[in-house]
């Protein structure tokens, strides 16, 4: 069967699994839902009030019924109401997610812009000093957690330059693109360092492999220059593992956003999810985690499609 079609059909199936997992997981979190919902006021409830509340929120039903209802709402874009925010979860996501997405995408772009050329450069100079320097940097980059990069960056800025990254009030992209970029560039760098390093390493390794492939030799036998051989014959093949990596790494970026948003005080969805988990805001955790997983899966679907575009073997289903 057609590869693309199969990926498209798998998508809702895995999503369904993800939704079940999230639903069950959050219900395993200790603590009564009503207490978590009402906080200080729950102590004043009579048993009758408690029951009626449970009925109102559908918590009196068994999990299957609750899940079915939640799923029903989900299909209509209704993710429920956040207790801590007193707002619909969908609205919170709509307000916060663009920032997280922008942060992740910006990190990705930075990582690819740094990593790809660095990796290709290193591969063409394999085992020479310039290759070694690139590899050392990539190795260190890959070994440094994003929060360490973030903290060190803040430290260097504050001690070395007597300033701090502009963290204050978040400026949305639509309001002031330059101001927005100025705010996000450092978080994106912190988030993207490890990714850039990984791209460098994988691009280098792929390029090295490919440069010894028969078809590169064939291209050389046609009398083409090194530049043309790399650009036209090797690079399209080297992009395939880089694209795969980008799909996987996008998840790390979304996850890393939880920490980086916290450090740089950015009002993205990463911070929401951390707070929501800590504060047992069921609907919010369910909604946000599902939404993040949805986006992660979506990006991986796009990666799969990009794959098909890059590699005709996948597009037409090689034997």
């Amino acid at each position, binding site marked *: 069967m057609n590869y693309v079609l*199969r990926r498209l059909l798998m998508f809702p199936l895995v999503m369904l699994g993800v939704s079940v997992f999230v639903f069950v997981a959050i219900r395993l979190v200790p603590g009564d839902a009503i207490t978590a919902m009402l906080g200080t006021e729950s102590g004043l409830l009579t048993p009758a009030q408690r029951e009626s509340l449970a009925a109102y929120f559908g918590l009196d039903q068994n999990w299957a019924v609750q899940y079915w209802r939640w799923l029903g709402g989900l299909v209509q874009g209704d993710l429920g109401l956040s207790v801590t925010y007193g707002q619909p979860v969908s609205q919170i996501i709509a307000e916060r997610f663009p920032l997280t997405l922008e942060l992740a995408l910006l990190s990705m772009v930075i990582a690819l812009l740094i990593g790809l050329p660095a990796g290709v450069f290193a591969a063409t100079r394999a085992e020479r000093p310039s290759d070694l320097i690139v590899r050392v940097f990539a190795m260190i980059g890959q070994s440094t957690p994003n929060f360490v990069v973030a903290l060190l960056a803040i430290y260097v800025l504050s001690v070395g330059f007597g300033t701090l990254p502009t963290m204050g009030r978040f400026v949305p992209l639509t309001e002031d693109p330059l101001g927005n970029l100025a705010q996000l560039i450092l978080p994106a760098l912190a988030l993207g360092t490890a990714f850039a390093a990984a791209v460098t390493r994988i691009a280098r390794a792929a390029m090295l492999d490919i440069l010894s*492939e028969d078809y590169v*030799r*064939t291209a050389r*036998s046609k009398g*083409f*220059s090194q530049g043309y051989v790399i650009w036209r014959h090797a690079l*399209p*093949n080297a992009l395939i593992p880089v694209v795969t990596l980008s799909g996987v790494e996008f998840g790390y970026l979304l996850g890393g956003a939880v920490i980086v948003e916290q450090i740089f005080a950015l009002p993205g969805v990463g911070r929401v999810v951390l707070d929501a988990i800590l504060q047992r805001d069921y609907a919010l955790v369910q909604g946000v985690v599902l939404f993040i997983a949805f986006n992660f899966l979506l990006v991986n679907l796009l990666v799969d499609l990009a794959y098909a575009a890059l590699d005709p*073997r996948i597009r037409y289903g090689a034997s």
Partner: protein
Amino acid sequence: MTLLSVEDLRVGFGRTGRETEVVHGVSFDVAAGETLAIVGESGSGKSVTAMAVNRLIDYGGGRILGGRAIYDGRIDVAAATEAEMQRLRGREIGMIFQEPMTALNPVLKVGTQIGEIFRKQHGMSGRAVRQASVRALDRVRIPDAARRLDQAPHQMSGGMLQRVMIAMALAGEPRLLIADEPTTALDVTIQAQIMALLAELQRETGTGLIFITHDIGLVAGLADRVLVMQGGKAVESGPIDRVLDRPSHDYTRHLLNAVPHFRAGQAVRTDGVRDGRAPALDVRDLAVRFPVGGGFLRRTRGEVHAVDGVSFDLVPGETLGIVGESGSGKSTTARAILNLVQPSAGAIDTEGRTAVQMVFQNPNASLNPRMDVRALLAEPVIAAGQRVDDAVVGRMRALLARVDLPDDLDRFPHEFSGGQRQRLCIARALMLNPRVLVLDEAVSALDVSVQAKVLDLLVDLQREFGLAYLFVSHDMAVVERIAHRIAVLYAGRIVEMGAARAVLSDPRHPYTRKLISAVPSIERRRIDYALDTEEVPSLLRPVGFQTPAQVWRQIGPDHRVASEQTA
């Protein structure tokens, strides 16, 4: 006129200043329109020599250490700069590689890979490129060329890809063409087509051709001159007839005599005995069908009839050779007998589970690299539920001695050569005293001179233990050496079967004839191969499809052929 003159060429690999020399001073000339064959086994330095001629060796970690290679009397390739080489490659010296499947860029369309030559080397653009590309494919007799341009390499068969490769090599209109084992990865009938094409194109263009091969029989029909290489040295060179008929060097003689060459039934074994003894293996109406998945909901779209009603028997001491090309179902038949694939229908009668053992094609892959000889030989014993006691160890040592391996049970597979590993596989298969050995391409992965020795060993063992062999191979020359009887498999069915001499010397089925005529032979020199682009028919059938029964015609006492059907 001499196109290329190579003198005392030395090539090495490794770090500058500490190279290991692998080609030790080779000299040869190639004239325009002439074909030079470089013959040798793996490690002889023949490919390295070829790669040195257009300096692609530079990109494989190698370097020309000395000597000269004067191209066209004007430029020494050995001393040329990379920029100079880029002007030579493609335009002056074209190259065809061994594996068409890997030599073409998998992510670029065929048209792109041909077109770029016209674009870059001939400065064409736009429609002209496409028209030139279509003409290039037409020239190598690729049907429906315009459509093929938009295909990706993996959508084409190996034979087609090699034609594309040739079209690409010729697109730069080179005056010298280097073909490095261009047919080794291909079926024998396809090989014949490619050889024919090369010969014809060379006549048309007057190109000089360096043809590199391990099969001296293959070049008999093509080359003007031969250079035999061994261990990085040229041991003999001269005109083809002189070298083939009056070899002066021992190694050349060895290649010509000890190595199996196809002799159309004249080299068959004569020790066959088929005197009504009870068969050690009896296969009746064997069928193997693979469902072709519908994908998501796994609805079966159809079935591939990989093996379709195959019947034969095998008596002790006898070898049945099953020959056929890729996709003919010969390996599936072998695997079905060992129950490695589930037969869909038919009966297989043997004398118990351990009575049939198998030797696989690739000795590297059929020995677990993490087990030593003792563990490897013990495995069948353990699997049979027996204890590995002194008697078993004794048998291990005896078998090792019998297959000419050192008496060391603690070695690991990587410490053996390819031929030794295959001997180890044979010893392992014999651990349980089987009646039948199924040998699936058992010598195909070995160097030609090693092949001969393993074949000799197999014959000896067969005599000693009264073994029955089911010898599955695509190589007619090898089968001729070992088989008493031959079954020709085509599209999942036996189309012709009988005594080896009868089938090989007097093939009756059209496919058998085509197959045998395609086999290269030392006897056949400078003959024209017929061009033929027919491909194997699809074996995909609707679910439940019953292939009509075959109608057999008896030709001789032990020789029968299936009638042509139009199914």
